[in-house]
Structure formats: structure tokens, C-alpha cells
């Protein structure tokens, strides 16, 4: 079985995005930490588990982005993936899911993957589009928010269980090839073993360069303006030392008769 897992590298959620001068995008400082999108880590783990069950399975990783994303691809190799593909673009600008799914669809063209896994969404932009769009472009079925996945032996299909709103579930069989958007909680991602870390050191990440100009042409939606998010509640921020804040909080809750 040939599996592809699409991953994205995301910035540390505690880092601060700085709005650019044109107010059309935001950038992160030089010292920002980046790591694999949490949902994608679950997707990689799920791919590796299938490989353990079905001999002869290969697990490829693909990601689109600038030089920095190499470390995320490397991490997947350390977890145990077989090959890493880096669709390199020298830009930190907005790249729409529509474009990303086109690029990956093109990449998939000759690869004959049986199963494509993605995270259900990225933690930073939360669009959840690249996976389903990719499936549509490849003409294959897809399911999002998947909490259980098993391969139905010889039948050329998988059984998935989706998590619906309010925690309801829906299971179904999908004919392969298919794409699955993985939800957190499906598994516990492994820590890389020492032997895999050593192996990954010697595995080359295969880089495919993309033309920046190509990306503009097919661009669809654009970010016109970006601003600090508005507030739903007029919250007050407590000031002072830790002990002072604790005392103020106690008093405020007392006044509300909550204590």
C-alpha cells in the first residue's frame, strides 16, 4: 500500500504574529519556534500504524513551504516515514488552500497513492480545506474529522469513523484510493526512536522547486486586510504581582457571591 501524508509546519501558538505595514499579512519574528501541526502528527502516526499492519506499505511525506519546513519533514522521517518531499517555495506569503491542493494534486499525479492522510485542519489558519480540495481534484472520496481508521484487507477499501458535532459518530467504508482528514485523539503520536533518528539523518529530503510567479496566476481569494481580533466581552486585566492578582480575583469572585 502506498500512503502519502500531507503535513504543515506551524508557528508556536504562543508567539506573536506582527501585522505588516500594508496590513495584508502578518509575520513572525526571527526566533519563533515552529513545529508540525498537531493534527498532522496524528496523521503521520496513523500512516505508520498501517505500515506496521500491512507489510510492503510505504509512507511518504509532502509539505509546501520555505526552507524552515525541512525540520518538520525531518521530524516525520525520524518518526519512521520512508521518504520526505519538500515542495519548496521561497515565500512566507498567504498561499491559499486552493493553490496548495493544486500543487499537491500535481505532485501526486504519477505517484499512485492508495491512501492520502492529512490533519483535519491546521492549528494556525484553521481552514481545513487542503485535504478535501485535494481529494476532489484527484477525483477520490474523502472523509474529515476521522477518529478511527482501518484497512479492509483485500477489499480495496477502508473503514473510517468520523466525529460529528456534539461528539456523535458516523462510520462508513470508502473505496480506495481515498483521502482521510485525521482528528486528534485517533492515536498517540510516537516519539522518534534513536535508530530512526540516525536513519533520518542519512535520508535526503527530496526538494521540488516551485515558481513563485505560478502561484500568483491561480490565486483566488486574497487577504485584503488584517487586524487585531475584536473582543466578545469587555474583559478587565488584573494588574500587580501574582499574589496581588490572586487577592483581587478572590475579592471579585466573592463580590459576585461565587465564593
Amino acid at each position, binding site marked *: 500500500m502506498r500512503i502519502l501524508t500531507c503535513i504543515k509546519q506551524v508557528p508556536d*501558538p*504562543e508567539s506573536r*504574529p506582527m*501585522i505588516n505595514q500594508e496590513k495584508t499579512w*502578518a509575520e513572525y519574528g526571527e526566533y519563533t519556534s515552529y513545529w508540525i501541526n*498537531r493534527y498532522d502528527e496524528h496523521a503521520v502516526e496513523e500512516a505508520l500504524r498501517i505500515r506496521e499492519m500491512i507489510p510492503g506499505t510505504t509512507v511518504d511525506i509532502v509539505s509546501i513551504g520555505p526552507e524552515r519546513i525541512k525540520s518538520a519533514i525531518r521530524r516525520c522521517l525520524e518518526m519512521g516515514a520512508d521518504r520526505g518531499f519538500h515542495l519548496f517555495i521561497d515565500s512566507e506569503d498567504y498561499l491559499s488552500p*486552493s493553490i496548495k491542493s493544486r500543487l499537491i494534486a500535481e505532485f501526486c499525479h504519477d505517484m499512485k497513492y492508495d491512501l492520502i492522510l492529512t490533519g483535519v485542519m491546521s492549528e*494556525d*489558519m*484553521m481552514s481545513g*480545506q487542503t485535504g*478535501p*480540495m485535494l*481529494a*476532489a481534484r484527484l477525483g*477520490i472520496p*474523502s*472523509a*474529515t*474529522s476521522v477518529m478511527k481508521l482501518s484497512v479492509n484487507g483485500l477489499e480495496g477499501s477502508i473503514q473510517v469513523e*468520523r466525529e460529528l*458535532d*456534539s*461528539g*456523535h*459518530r*458516523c*462510520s*462508513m*467504508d*470508502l*473505496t480506495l484510493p*481515498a483521502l482521510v482528514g485525521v482528528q*486528534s*485523539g485517533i492515536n498517540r503520536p510516537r516519539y522518534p526512536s534513536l535508530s530512526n533518528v540516525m536513519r533520518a539523518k542519512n535520508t535526503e529530503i527530496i526538494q521540488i522547486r516551485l515558481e513563485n510567479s505560478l502561484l500568483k496566476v491561480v490565486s*483566488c*481569494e*486574497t*487577504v*485584503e*486586510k*488584517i*487586524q*487585531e*481580533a475584536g*473582543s*466578545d*466581552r469587555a*474583559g478587565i*486585566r*488584573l494588574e500587580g504581582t*501574582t499574589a496581588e*492578582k*490572586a*487577592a483581587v*480575583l478572590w475579592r471579585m*469572585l466573592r463580590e*459576585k457571591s*461565587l*465564593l
Partner: protein
Amino acid sequence: MSHSIMIMCEQSEGRILAVTDELIACATQIADHYDSRLTAVLPGLITEPCSISGADLLVINSPGLAQYTCEGWEKAALLATEQIKPKIIIIAHTSTGYDYAPRLAALLEGCCLTSVSGIEITGDSISYRRSGFHGKLDLLYGVGKAPLVITVLPGAFPAPDWQAEPGITRIIDADIKPKLTSHVQFSIPDQSNTELDHAEVIVAAGKGIGQAENLLMIRDMASCFKRSAIAGSRVACDNGWIEYNAQVGLTGKKVSPLLYVACGISGSAQHISGMKDSKTVVSINRDPEAAIFRYSDICIVEDLEKFIPAFLQEAKKHQS
């Protein structure tokens, strides 16, 4: 410039769900400006006569649409677009909507915006608002000529409290069969948690508690209050710190206690949707820009490992 707007009804067993009115409210905002025609589309196996207020209704009726499948809904929506030729397609951002909306956009060579929370209209152009960068920033998107599919966050566009005239209903009997999807089965796991349901105060732990050992102080904090319970964000549950039946949010419990204390929770839209009706919200987070503070009445920028012990100390002082 007039164009038609298509709304995909959210349905359950052939009945139109209330969130559909919110989609019509969103569509109406656009339509008021552009003199557009609104057509709602209802895929399903429809046995009773139906209509919808504020829009015409196009029923795509087929035995193969008796229950939701991504494939079936995609085919029904494509069939409807041939009839309606919409410029904008509006879908609810639910586990149904986000499952097929991006596919539909790709197949129509259009673009897609998910979790849209607002619309801004200036002159001849419309911008769509959604949040990004871990919920810290609001982004306004403009779109070109291509067809646009948006998924709208439930609750973002309140349904009008008056009933508009129902439009005309038209039924297309189609033969839509999912070919690549089979054995579809729905289930409802038992996630009951009476303690949480009855709690007046909920102290919730997020990924920011860092380790299972810190649950102790979350429990201690909860026990400062009468009728209290502990809960968690999805990550806290995924990490095995909190039981899944105490997960608050879109895929967990919806709670509205007198007091909700969020400890080390970032405030993702999916979490907020489960606790935003709490009377008072207190948040403890070391990131001054964390999105949770936008939904809080009392904001405490602190490391919880320092702050919670300080609070417990304070509580002790008053006890003795």
C-alpha cells in the same frame, strides 16, 4: 450587478434545521446590496411538503440522499448549481458542511472560505471575515470572479426573529447514489456527565497545564467553590488528563455555568463554542495575546503554575 446566491440547507432526516435560518440571514445581508435571488437547496429523501422563509427552495430528492454522505451531498450541490448558477454558495460550518464545501469549491474551479464569522460591504465589494493566526488576528478576504463557497460559523449571523414570506418550492427527483461510500452508520456514544451538567462553577484545564500532576491544583481550585466540577479542552482530553465526557466545546459538552475558569486554554473557536454562554469567564494564560482573553471577563496573564497556588493560598487565608 445582480447574482444568485445558493444556500445549502442543514437538515436531519429530511427536516430543515434552525441553523439554516442563520445562513439565510447571512445571504440576506449580501442580497440586500446586490438585489440577488436566494435559493435554498435541500438534498434528501423528502416525504413531506416543505418550504423555507426568505428564499425559494429547490429540493433535490433521491433515495440515495436519505442520509448524509460527502459524495451524495457533493453531487446534489453540483446538480443544484447547474440550475441556479450561483455566484456565492453558503453552507453551515458544521461537521457536514466542512466535509464537502471545499470539494465543491474545487470542482467548480472556485474558491472557498471556511468558518466565516462576518461580512463587510463597501461600495461594490464584499469582504469576508474569518479569524486566523491561532485566533489572534481577524482576516478580511476579498474574492475575484470565480464562484465562491463559504462556510458560516453557527451563531455568527443571528436568525431574524420575524418570519419572512416562504418562497416557491421546486422539487427535482434525482437518482443520486454514492458509489465509493458504503455501510454508513450513525451512532451516539454515551458521554453523560451529570456532575458537569449540574455544576455552577467549572474549572477547565487546557494543554497549558503541561502535565498530569498539575491536575491536582485544578481540582484544588475547583474545590474552593460549591457545586463545582472540572473539565478540559480537547487537548487536555487527548493527553489523557481529563475524561472525554468532560470535554467542553464543539465536539464535547456545551456548558453555561455561573463561572468558567479557563486554565491554560488558548481559546480556539471550537472550544469557545462550548462555553461562551457562561455567565462569568475567568482566564489564566501566560500568553498576553491568547484568544481566550477576548471571551473573558477577568483576564489573568500569568503562569498558572504560579498563579493557581497563589490563589489557593489566598483562599486558605480566608478560610481560617
